[in-house]
């Protein structure tokens, strides 16, 4: 996956941050609910259709004081999961 990708949250996903964790509700036909932990929640908020993945990775490194390699691995794993769930769009 290229770090130049710019992704955004799907329009019809309801979400709310509660006690540092985000709850996602897919209002599409699947009507699924998911919960992100605090790091996933941080990334989710960055998926605004403006930041590319490289910028988000740098933000994760800075926020959690972790290496670039670890941040990239975890970011890509998270994005892969989000894509599988169909809750993000973009290219």
């Amino acid at each position: 996956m290229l770090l130049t990708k710019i992704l955004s949250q799907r329009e019809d996903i309801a979400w709310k941050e509660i006690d540092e964790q985000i709850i996602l509700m897919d209002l599409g036909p699947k009507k699924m609910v998911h919960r992100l932990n605090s790091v996933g929640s941080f990334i989710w908020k960055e998926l605004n259709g403006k930041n590319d993945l490289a910028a988000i990775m740098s933000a994760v490194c800075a926020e959690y004081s972790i290496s670039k390699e670890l941040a990239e691995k975890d970011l890509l794993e998270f994005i892969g999961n989000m894509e599988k769930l169909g809750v993000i769009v973009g290219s």
Partner: protein
Amino acid sequence: MVRKLIKKDSSILDQTTQVAFDKCIPLFATIETTLGCNYSCVHCYNFDRSSSMPENIKGRPLKKEEFIRVIDELCDAGAFYISFTGGEALLYPHIYSLIERVIHNKSMPRVKTNGHLLTEEVCNKLYKAGCRALDISIYGADEKSYKNFTGMADGYNKVLEGVKRALSFDMEINFNIILHKDNCMDIGKLIKLAETLGVPYQFSDEVTARYDGTESSQDFGITPDQYNELLKGPHKDLFWHDNSEESFQCSCARNVVGIGLDGVVYPCIGAPIPSGDLKEHSFKDIWNDSQEFKKIRELKKEDFSDCVVCEFKHQCNRSSGSAFVNAENYTGCDPMALRVAQVRHKNKDSF
């Protein structure tokens, strides 16, 4: 450290609800949009619909822009489920703008409706605005019981048509089946109706006094003899309640909040204790500083002094809101809950 960024399990909502309860986050908000209704249900808690709307309950309704501000403030405070109620919420002309505003805030709108007005045009507008969930009140299993209860001649068929139409729009529908003395023995038919349509359902057998102070609504509640029969019938488990953990308080002012048509804030839309006025204060200030909310949040088990020593407490599903409406005592005994708990107590060996 960034492992398991996403968790998915069926208890997510339960756990979130509990967190919101513990941390006093108003996850579930209900907004009253109108007191007008196309039905005149005999049990309606708003006011006695056999007469015109009393002046004292009208107040000055919030304007559309004020409702929009309130929605923004509720969402900022953590409201995720925002339910619009009435009266008949679909009669409120700006309901679609309010739904859009909830979606704009990334929260989940729901509309509580009697279902009669779910025409193709209304379903289309609801869908376009972003509404994907309806809570539909069901009053009977045939035209006759609908007419007797709601005063509307073709209610049953219209509601059924509306439900089917909304389902075709991919709306999630939940039936709130209102049980009263004239339809409770049709319970089998009511369940079949929901199951045939593939709609999840819950029952409500609570008939409270009205907010205008009249009490004749309670004449329509299930009688103790009927309750006794239901507790022996094929659907008896639906009427049983086990409160051996002795919980007497509900979610009022913790993860639940109600907003009246005139901007008055309540601990729950079913507990009409005025706790602040959104025309004068922000939601955040009311939620954090209301003396009424503080008192409710500080309640301890022993404050429910009637309940703690009550012989029927393990079979009682009291709601503090109903106790307040029926007996003007939020922490006291609700006479309607007592009647039901006594019958359950008598039948306890069958459960």
